[in-house]
């Protein structure tokens, strides 16, 4: 009988190692995190066991956290916009090229994925620094007289985040652009459409699913960003991610950190869920 079950559900045996890994080290910690959010929070003591909804009430009236949440939302808008524009141009160019050019462009795109975030943040720090690359050019070209520090502001955080989001977004858009039937553009051309019109009325709507997914992921990464803004931003650019890490590592108030984590998790997962539904709708619509 037992053999029979395994024979019948062989797929289950193959899925089992991953499922065990995920249930013990992914699902369980998140369930425990929900329980942790009801414990009594005492700064510098991690947590005291008990039951209270005080942590959730504190979140509702914590003005500082609200401003950080709002700031991170504001930050995500330019990041998403810039990433999408740059990624679309690059993905469009890759999908329209072939051979060695395509290979080189894909390599350039993908390679930064495995460079860790600290290195990326650090190199942008060197570029923006008082004696960094940009100041070097600006002073030598005579545009400014004295080198001024350019980093640690809103713009440097945006640039760092765009740099991190770009590779994944290019690949997402590329997979959509590669699947657009070239005969559709040909047909539009034969019907007398200009190049611009073809792009706006054929290519762009057809790539909508990729744009939606790309935007959703940029949003999620910006909302949960922590390494990049803590290197490239000033205290004014503190994101909600930094505040959560702060509660967990420095303030050592784990229950409150849990509440903030759960809030962020709800924001990111609902974004991905909605984007998934939208993606399927637009994909169906684009096909028609």
């Amino acid at each position, binding site marked *: 009988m037992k053999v029979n079950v395994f024979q019948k559900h*062989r*797929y289950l045996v*193959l899925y089992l*190692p*991953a499922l065990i*890994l*995920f249930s013990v*080290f*992914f699902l369980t*910690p*998140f369930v*425990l*995190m929900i329980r942790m959010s009801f414990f009594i929070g005492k700064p510098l003591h991690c947590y005291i066991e008990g039951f209270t909804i005080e942590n959730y009430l504190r979140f509702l009236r914590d003005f500082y956290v609200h401003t950080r949440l709002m700031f991170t939302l504001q930050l995500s808008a330019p990041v998403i916009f810039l990433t999408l524009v*740059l990624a679309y*141009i*690059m993905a469009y*160019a890759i999908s*329209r090229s072939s051979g060695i050019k395509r290979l080189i*462009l*894909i*390599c*350039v795109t*993908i390679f*930064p*994925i*495995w*460079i*860790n975030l*600290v*290195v990326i943040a*650090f*190199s942008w720090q*060197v*570029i923006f*620094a008082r004696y960094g690359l940009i100041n070097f050019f600006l002073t030598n070209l005579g545009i400014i007289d004295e080198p001024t520090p350019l980093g640690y502001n809103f713009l440097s955080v945006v640039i760092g985040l765009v740099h991190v989001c*770009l*590779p*994944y977004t*290019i*690949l*997402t*858009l*590329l*997979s959509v652009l590669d699947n657009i039937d070239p005969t559709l553009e040909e047909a539009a051309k034969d019907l007398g459409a200009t*190049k611009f019109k073809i792009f706006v009325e054929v290519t762009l709507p057809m790539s909508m699913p990729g744009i939606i*997914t790309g935007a959703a*992921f940029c949003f999620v990464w910006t909302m*949960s960003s*922590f*390494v990049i803004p803590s290197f490239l931003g000033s205290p004014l650019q503190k994101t909600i*991610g930094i505040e*959560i*890490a702060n509660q*967990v590592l420095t303030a050592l108030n*784990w229950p409150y*950190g*849990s509440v903030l*984590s759960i809030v962020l998790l709800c924001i990111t*997962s609902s974004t*991905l869920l909605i984007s998934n539904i939208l993606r399927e709708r637009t994909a169906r619509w684009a096909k028609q």
Partner: protein
Amino acid sequence: MGKTIAKSSIFLNFACVLISAFILIPVVIIFLTSLDPAKYIRFPPSGFSLLWYEYFFSNKVWQNGLLNSVYVAVLNTIISVPCGILAAYAYRKYTFKLKNIFNTIMIIPYVTPSLLVGIALLMAFGRTILRGTYFIVAIAHALWSTSFIYILMQAALSNYDFTYEEAAKDLGANLFQMFSEVTLPLLKSAFIAAILFAFISSFGEVTMAIFLVTSKTVTLPVLLWTSLKYELHPVATVASVICIIFAIVIFMLITKFFGTGMLSKIGM
């Protein structure tokens, strides 16, 4: 007509060069500054020397960081590669009722912010015997890595012909023979790519590691993080270059074994 095409492709090529420069410049800058013997990080470099490389390789702390990163990455590879490959194999080979649900479950760790995964693991295991072990860091990386390998292997297996395995079985091969004589040779390059992917994604991971390492198990990226938080020491540029070199070498191996066609499947 031909003129407009040429015009627009010049614009496109130009934009492409600019975006590529945007992606690559930070890497080049770090490499150049790492060769500067000066005590302060500045651009342009004031000279050329391997001073900070010597410093890096003679310093116990940095050496340990590098070794720890390798340990964690190897452990992560051992855990995540079998998990990811087996699940992707099941997805491609069998049809079953809950296929979509299984597929979604497998992808969830890939799309969950690593900041939150790191915090959840710290809270769950930070006060158990797993605290301060390589295992807990490797497990954190393995969650992401397993999902990632699952997605990649699904793509790689879409061209795989399962009838060869059936043929081997019909000829009397047992499960082990079938695997070693048919499956392994046919999927060799995909397996190697999976191993390389798992290794490098763990080697450079920092967000989860920040929450899970102790001074004994601190990895190179976390060491870089802590050292840069307090001072901008030039040795950090060398540590960065070493991270970049690892990424380049593994990236070249991946393109060799796997081809860029598969690489473009990383996007969602």
